[in-house]
């Protein structure tokens, strides 16, 4: 019985592996794009001018308030209604990018705010422009402060990417479902898929922990 389970797993593994790669691809792309947009929104939503700040904060709050599943469905099933059509893969990337941007902009904004005000004053007193002060003093430190939280969020988005099965994207959970539908062995295949998720998330969390400890030692 247990040997047959292992045989079945061996048979399913290549398809699940392909699914895992798709999961990692949508996660990676969404994170890279989302971080960049998130940094932009973090800067806009800490701008001095309310005319810039408030619209940015509003968009971020909408992005954060929207469940990732709704975001995915909106992009894939909703946007065609206004003439914008995506395949499942780009639709997932767009939706997860938006969610990532909204959340990371808050995480980065908190990091930027944690940079001591005295350093900004020193930058001012030295005659550095505001842009230079952000570029050389605030952003590098703010990102470093935010890094562990950002990485924790990256792990979360990897898990959330499983929701893309609802768009028919052949990512890890989607592959597991279709194997389950064909074999009616949902439990066995889902356990294997779960193990594959854990094979990524557990080492990643461990790395984040180590990084956090190293950074806190350096900045202390």
């Amino acid at each position, binding site marked *: 019985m247990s040997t047959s389970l292992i045989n079945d797993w061996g048979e399913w593994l290549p398809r699940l592996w392909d699914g895992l790669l798709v999961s990692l691809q949508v996660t990676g792309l969404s994170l890279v794009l989302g971080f960049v947009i998130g940094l932009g929104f973090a800067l806009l939503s800490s701008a001095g001018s309310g005319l810039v700040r408030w619209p940015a904060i509003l968009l971020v709050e909408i992005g954060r308030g929207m469940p990732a599943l709704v975001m995915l469905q909106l992009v894939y099933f909703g946007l065609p209604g206004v003439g914008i059509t995506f395949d499942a893969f780009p639709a997932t990337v767009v939706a997860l990018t938006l969610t990532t941007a909204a959340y990371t902009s808050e995480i980065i904004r908190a990091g930027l705010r944690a940079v*001591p005000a*005295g*350093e900004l*004053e*020193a930058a*001012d*007193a*030295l*005659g*550095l*422009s505001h842009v*230079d002060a952000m570029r*050389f*003093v605030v952003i*590098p*430190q703010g990102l*470093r402060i935010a890094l562990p939280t950002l990485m924790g969020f990256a792990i979360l988005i990897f898990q959330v990417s499983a929701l893309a099965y609802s768009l028919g994207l052949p990512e890890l959970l989607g592959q597991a479902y279709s194997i389950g539908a064909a074999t009616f062995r949902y439990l066995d295949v889902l356990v294997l898929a779960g193990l594959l998720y854990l094979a990524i998330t557990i080492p990643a969390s461990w790395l984040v922990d180590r990084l956090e400890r190293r950074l806190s030692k*350096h*900045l*202390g």
Partner: protein
Amino acid sequence: MTEPLTSPARPILSIEGLSKQFGDHTAVDDVSLDVRPGEVVAIIGPSGSGKSTLLRCINLLESPTTGRITVGGIPTEVDGKVSQRELVALRRKVGMVFQSFNLFPHLTVLRNISLPQERVLGRSRAEADARSMALLEQVGLASKASSHPPRCSGGQQQRVAIARALALDPSVMLFDEPTSALDPELGLEVLSVMRQLADEGMTMIVVTHEIHFASDVADRLIVMADGRIIEQGDPKTVIDDPQVERTRTFLSAIRDR
């Protein structure tokens, strides 16, 4: 003798009728002050008397409510708005050292000093680094060039902060309680760097509770209370024979510490 208000040399820094209001609280109340080139002015006074606010107004970290600030002959009217260009012009001539050092902890000591030179004065990296190293030598920290500030003692950090400000070739240096956050021995190394700077002819305004430094190094001692200058003159004279009751109370309070 106690009021050297008419000095032969043209003042390098002139403050006229400077006031700063926070809401309806007046932190600095109609202060006027001329500082001659090379003069060292020490400011003492109880906590909350407006010493920091006065310094912060001089380089416009705080925008004064009214008044005029003239550095090196170029006046800046500060009623209401100051243009970005005036702001930068003024700050280039005024260096500031803070109680809490405010170094950039993610940059090496050398980068802390070189970066502002490159960005503000447009010096090349090599020029800036050469100047930084010369200054580090001068403050006795050449060996710390590649360390990060959190790895330096407080006294070392403050000396780096002084070098960072000097690297921009200011006409006037402002010090806001530069040794208050330091243990006495570490404070001494900072004071000795400041003394050396004074000997070299730097114009300095120093807010401090170090009465010895004030009486040995300063050319003039100013006592502030409630946002106003209540007494000023030759440091030893003011310290030994204060004319104002509040000065007397304050001096005996800091002596008893």
